[in-house]
């Protein structure tokens, strides 16, 4: 049996914290083990906060879980923004040389099995999935 979550939010609106809490509660109710849900929540925070910073207009989140696989689709109608086009940070540098920031999309790539970006109908669409 599958479970599905769908919400929309005005990007940049102060509703991000509530949306994050709502997704967390939904993953728990959908039976995702806490340690796995924690990894997924990191990814949702990276993706949604990125859009709030770079986007405009409205963002929508759809999450489906079936056969222990989570697939999330995040769409926003802000300006074109491909988060996957960012350079991977050098995580071998020592403390003095590490830049503050730039790690978000690196975490998304590493914590998910698949991540794909497309610009479709004047919207940014990011799809990511993870078997847990």
């Amino acid at each position, binding site marked *: 049996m599958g479970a599905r979550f769908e919400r929309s939010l005005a990007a940049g609106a102060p509703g991000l914290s509530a949306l994050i809490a709502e997704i967390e509660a939904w993953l728990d109710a959908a039976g995702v083990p*806490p340690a796995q849900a924690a990894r997924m929540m990191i990814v949702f925070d990276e993706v949604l906060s990125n859009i709030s910073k770079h986007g405009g207009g409205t963002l929508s989140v759809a999450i489906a879980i079936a056969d222990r696989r989570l697939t999330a689709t995040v769409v926003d109608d802000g300006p074109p923004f491909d988060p996957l086009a960012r350079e991977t940070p050098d995580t071998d540098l020592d403390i003095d040389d590490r830049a503050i920031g730039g790690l978000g999309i690196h975490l998304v790539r590493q914590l998910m099995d698949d991540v794909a970006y497309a610009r479709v109908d004047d919207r940014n669409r990011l799809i990511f999935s993870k078997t847990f």
Partner: protein
Amino acid sequence: MDISENSRDGALVISAAGRIDSTTAGELEAVLPARVREHGAVVVDLSGVPYVSSAGLRVLLIGAKGAKAAGHRLVITGVAPAVHEVFDISGFSKIFTIEPDVDAAIASLG
């Protein structure tokens, strides 16, 4: 997120509880950089933290840089599995001193 502070055996222990993400990291940023400047030894206890996103990593890195610049010590403890994985992915496991619990952290500072 809840943040509490207490002094123990000459170290300042900052305990955080709750997620450290884009919506809460500012609360830690309001405390940590100042404390690592003021105190020679700071322990950040993350045992009540289920996960840390890049916004939280950013604040921890600011703290580590601040401590190093002041010649002070910063030790992190109570790292949950998802937090440990993020530390590994981001290379933070190599640049932070991480101890299993507050007792071990205090001992390492002794």
